[in-house]
């Protein structure tokens, strides 16, 4: 009997003591603070993110549909779009392969210099893109260290496609690796060990176990990498030389048009880039909504 009544009394005693504390958290000042915070963040988002985005599309359509089509189908614009797609089509797969290799090395092995490697992977994030571009000019430019050698052998890097690709690869390198490293570290290597003891070859372990385990963070990393590869301005601007129809990417094309007071055309091309951003955002949200748990481990950084 006494055993049965004891817990009851304990909860009765604890309840009144606990009530004021919980009341404070969700009560009086709670909603006001909540409302304030939500208002501030919403106002910020509206003013700094949504309005500019809308204005891009509004300005793009300001001269009507025909002008918009004209702006994005004229030869220089088409060349810029094709160049941007080409650069991304080379830089992104390259970074995927190297990013996976780097993440694999860091997550699954212990070796000296590992911390240095991790810092180096982050380097492109901490260096201004303009510097990244300048580095390549210094290395491969006409007055650069390797300039004479390249010139003698007829290899063009700066003010040509290879330079654009190099600069883009440098700037977008961290995206894939940084998505994968924490996820792979969290997973550990027991799955791989299990597969090896079952007799799988290293290739089979990679394609049947490792890759499927991290596929969502990989996809996520590719999305971000691609968005940046297509949108990169600073580093590309330095190495491109902005030769219309030849080394002009979309972001550079937008700037040129704008500087030449062709606002509507500039915004028309910009709207394509903005559209890409929106598609990336939508895919990312879809991924998170659909595979939130699987991705959660990858986002802890």
């Amino acid at each position, binding site marked *: 009997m006494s055993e049965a009544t004891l817990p009851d009394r304990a909860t009765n005693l604890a309840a009144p003591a606990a009530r004021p504390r919980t009341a404070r958290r969700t009560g009086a000042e709670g909603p006001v603070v909540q409302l304030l915070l939500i208002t501030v963040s919403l106002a910020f988002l509206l003013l700094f993110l949504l309005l500019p985005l809308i204005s891009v599309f509004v300005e793009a359509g300001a001269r009507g549909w025909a002008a918009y089509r004209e702006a994005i189908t004229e030869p220089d614009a088409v060349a810029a779009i094709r160049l941007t797609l080409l650069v991304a089509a080379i830089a992104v797969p390259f970074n995927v392969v190297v990013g996976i290799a780097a993440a694999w090395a860091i997550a699954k092995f212990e070796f000296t210099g590992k911390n240095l490697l991790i810092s180096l992977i982050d380097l492109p994030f901490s260096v201004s893109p303009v510097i990244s571009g300048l580095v390549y000019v210094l290395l491969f430019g006409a007055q650069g260290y390797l300039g004479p050698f390249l010139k003698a052998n007829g290899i063009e890097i700066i003010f040509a496609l290879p330079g654009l690709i190099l600069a883009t690869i440098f700037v977008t390198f961290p995206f894939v690796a940084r998505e994968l490293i924490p996820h792979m570290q969290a997973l550990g290597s027991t*799955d791989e060990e*299990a597969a090896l003891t*079952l*007799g*799988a*070859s290293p290739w*089979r372990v990679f394609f*049947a176990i490792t890759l499927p385990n991290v596929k969502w963070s990989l996809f996520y990393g590719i999305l971000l990498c691609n968005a940046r590869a297509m949108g990169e301005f600073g580093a590309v601007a330095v190495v491109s030389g902005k030769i219309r129809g030849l080394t002009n990417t979309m972001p550079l094309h937008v700037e040129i048009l704008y500087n030449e007071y062709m606002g509507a055309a500039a915004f028309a091309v910009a709207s394509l880039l903005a559209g890409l951003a929106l598609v990336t955002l939508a895919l990312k949200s879809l991924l998170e909504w659909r595979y939130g748990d699987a991705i959660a481990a990858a986002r802890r950084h």
Partner: protein
Amino acid sequence: MSVAVTIEAIDKRFLAFQALRNVSLDIQPGELVALLGPSGSGKTTLLRLIAGLEQADAGRVLFGDDDTRDLSLRDRRIGFVFQHYALFKTMTVAENIAFGLRSRPRAERPDGAEITRRVKALLELVQLPDLERRYPSQLSGGQRQRVALARALAIEPQVLLLDEPFGALDAKIRKDLRAWLRDLHSRTGHTTVFVTHDQEEALELADRVAILHEGKLEQVGTPDDVYDHPATPFVCEFLGEANRLPVKIVGSQAFLGDRPVLGGLTQNQSGPAALYVRPHHLKFVDETPLSIPGVVEQLRRTGALRRAEIAVAGLTKRLDLDLTSQVAPAIGERVRVKITHATAFATA
């Protein structure tokens, strides 16, 4: 199918940590051996070395007559069950179990129908029929454990290695799975080595128990051997509770202070010694020559048994005694206890 495993003078070091020191162990074909020890004793390292997941700094492991250093992981044909199962999350139960078969070189790979048939048979063996299409996340801990075992058995291993097979399960399921594993072993007859830190599990399940401590093999023997005749004080204390009495051995008798408490000692080791006595090897007696007087200070319940704590003059710790009858002394009662079995280790 079963093969003998011979471990010869293994040394293993991780940076500054000496994980294994000169460990040698012979495992008979079809034997079920437990590697028992506290955490950090090197038992899991030894298991991983047998598997080939770690390389020894010195010494070697033989499967039958084959030196495993010459064998690839695939050729070792070991079934390894990981502590947290390591089931492939992106594959169904059937795909998990079939993985080893599908990983074989094309020439040795069974066809699709054969694989399906074997997966079905294995699921029946581990008593999980009709779970082929489930994903590991949809299974309970005990079910995952058995799927992991089925997956390991699928490659028809020469040796089955289990790392803390019941570590992540709750007490009730542990007991059930223990009996089931014992039964499975007697039916399939694989040479099996499992790692555990639970002495009860090791003693109940294994044909022989190998006790590791700080990277050294302390003792190997049948459960009865190691429990009744521990080779070292560590083994004695690790395998179960024991009272430790500082005694002096003269001839065949042990003296607590100047009172003889145990006779008939066979080891001829005169001098100071520690006498280890398990709680159920103490009993209440009436006045007899070799008995220890004391006062009952505490009565407790330990599962099925009741335990009395007895204060004895000259001992800093109370003696623990398991009561065998329902008749219990009162607290404060003066009693006499007698040692029925003990192990002595010289302390000088």
